[in-house]
């Protein structure tokens, strides 16, 4: 099913280390988040990214500081990959005012304008038009940044997907649509949500260059996104990349997973992108076992620090309840 990607990216030792580090950090961050959720430190809906790390990391490494990223409620991985500090993310999920959104957003609404990370959106498909608009603004201002928009395959059934693809193509704006096809939208399998399941074909039907890639394979994602970004840079127009992946955990913390077999999950876990990339680096002598251990330790420490930071964060004063309703003034 996957389109062949021509020749895998070579990574340097340093780059490999960094990317593996990111993926492992995301994984560990999610595990700790789940624990914190169980301890009721984090509340609301919590959607974990475990299993999909190669997508966020593989795509984001190709973006620059000035490139915009928009994502869904399952966005911790994208936020970390875009350079948000895990401390402020964890504090956000604790609801502390030291959080990246001052505690107002929680897990589903991570923001950091300084890092060009524009949320964290919890209306499925609702951020696609925003991404097209941001790309339009870039075009109008002759900026040379691109806007990258992550969303799930479930979102592809929403009308906003259609409208956004059509607008992006008509206007020829530099937006990279990244569809994370993890086969399920909550408990609804893709065969019940899309009449045509090879979603990359959708892109063609808008005249948008498109490809699909094995989203469990970091190098493949890197290759695919390299092509995507260079196409965008060349044409100034949009690109649609489908990353076929899988979430290892439940949809959110409220999910009995009645809709899929344990064995299916186990099958997919064999394709875990982290050991796959780690082993690649080891086998290619780009990384040593010792370095892997060092990453593991570092990751553990970073996440612990994030938890500490969140624990030590402070609650916003209730008297400030109506802040952030209008700019620099309070709501009535």
């Amino acid at each position, binding site marked *: 099913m996957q389109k062949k990607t021509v020749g895998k990216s070579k990574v340097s030792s340093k780059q490999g280390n960094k990317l593996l580090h990111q993926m492992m950090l995301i994984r560990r961050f999610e595990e700790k988040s789940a624990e914190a959720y169980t301890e009721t430190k984090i509340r*609301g809906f919590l959607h974990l990214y475990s299993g999909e790390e190669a997508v966020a990391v593989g795509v984001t490494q190709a973006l620059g500081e000035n490139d915009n990223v928009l994502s869904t409620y399952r966005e911790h991985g994208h936020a970390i990959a875009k350079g948000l500090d895990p401390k402020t993310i964890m504090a956000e999920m604790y609801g502390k005012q030291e959080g990246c959104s001052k505690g107002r957003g929680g897990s*589903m609404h991570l923001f950091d304008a300084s890092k060009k990370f524009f949320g964290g959106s919890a209306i499925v498909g609702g951020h696609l038009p925003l991404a097209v608009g941001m790309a339009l603004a870039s075009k109008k201002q002759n900026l040379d940044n691109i806007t990258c928009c992550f969303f799930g395959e479930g979102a592809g059934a929403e009308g906003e997907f259609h409208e956004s693809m059509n607008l992006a193509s008509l206007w020829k704006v530099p937006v990279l649509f990244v569809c994370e096809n993890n086969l399920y939208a*909550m408990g609804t399998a893709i065969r019940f949500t899309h009449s045509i399941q090879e979603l990359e074909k959708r892109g063609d039907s808008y005249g948008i260059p498109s490809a699909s890639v094995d989203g469990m394979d970091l190098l493949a994602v890197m290759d695919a996104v390299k092509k995507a970004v260079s196409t965008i840079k060349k044409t100034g127009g949009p690109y649609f990349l489908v990353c076929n992946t899988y979430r290892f955990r439940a949809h959110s913390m409220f999910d009995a997973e009645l809709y899929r077999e344990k064995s299916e999950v186990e099958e997919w876990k064999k394709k875990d992108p982290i050991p796959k990339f780690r082993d690649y680096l080891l086998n290619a002598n780009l990384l040593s076992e010792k370095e892997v251990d060092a990453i593991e330790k570092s990751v553990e420490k970073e996440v612990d620090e994030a938890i500490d930071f969140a624990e030590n964060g402070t609650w916003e004063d209730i008297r400030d309840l109506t802040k952030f*309703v209008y700019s620099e003034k309070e709501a009535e």
Partner: protein
Amino acid sequence: MSKMIKITYREALKQALREALQTDEKVFLMGEDVGRYGGAFAVSKGFLEEFGPDRIMDVPLSESGFTGAGIGAALGGMKPIVEVMTVNFSLLAMDQIINNASTLLHMSGGQVNVSVVIRMGCGIGSQLAAQHSHSWEPFYAHVPGLIVLSVGVHEDARGMVLTALKSPDPVILFEYTSMLNMEGEIPENSGEVDISKAKVRRSGNDISLITYGTGVYKCLEAAALLAEDGIDAEVLDLRVLRPMDEESILESISKTHRALVVEDAWRSVSISSEVSARIMEKGFFELDLPVERLCGVEVPMPYPKHLETAALPQPMDIADKVKKMLRS
């Protein structure tokens, strides 16, 4: 009178839906994750196995599309129950609900009626923040052609949908996510309930607490607190937000001569505004005090618990407000 049984709000909703599905072959349930997932809030858990995929339809994320299809299926002679997972997503289906469901009967000069029931999870969950916590009863209650119901107590959870299915006209049914696990008592043979009248949930003489939805139990709690202080509050559950049962409101006012309207929705242009305005018009000379409102604070719902709690009227706030009103 029949035996009383204990039941959760979720279970009451579930029993009602099951009864509807069992009784009428034309009834079917459609919505995101109502089937294989078991319902986002486990209300329809087990239904897929019991009724099969033709009666329990999982639909793709496409609120406008499937809500419109529900309306169309009603035109085609079926009795669809459309579940919009939460009211927040209903904005995507608003064109279908307002420009189609509420107008077709009129535009066709009475030829085409839309007998559809649209259920929506409403209000806060628990720290679901600014895109998942809202209370949009005020939007739908504005629109003629719709019947808008709010499920504030367990008995209505067990009965409203059954009566709604008999309506020839479109019914919007608000269910409250935050109440799903709450236990309550209902008669064992509980079933269809009237869907045209408000209902006094606690009779009292000193002040009318007029409310709906999540406000009902909160007001009852507040009334209990007030009773300790010797204040005898009446709690009126509006139940039907459109067309509003003005008569019951005025009746209550003519007894208590004072009113506080309570709701989780934002204050401006809300159900409370309407209640207050109606009392102004027809109950003015009955009033000993101006009607006041205690509503959701006008801020998109913040994530942290303490701010979420502060953003909504709590039983204590209601009781305090009443005391302040009566003191004045």
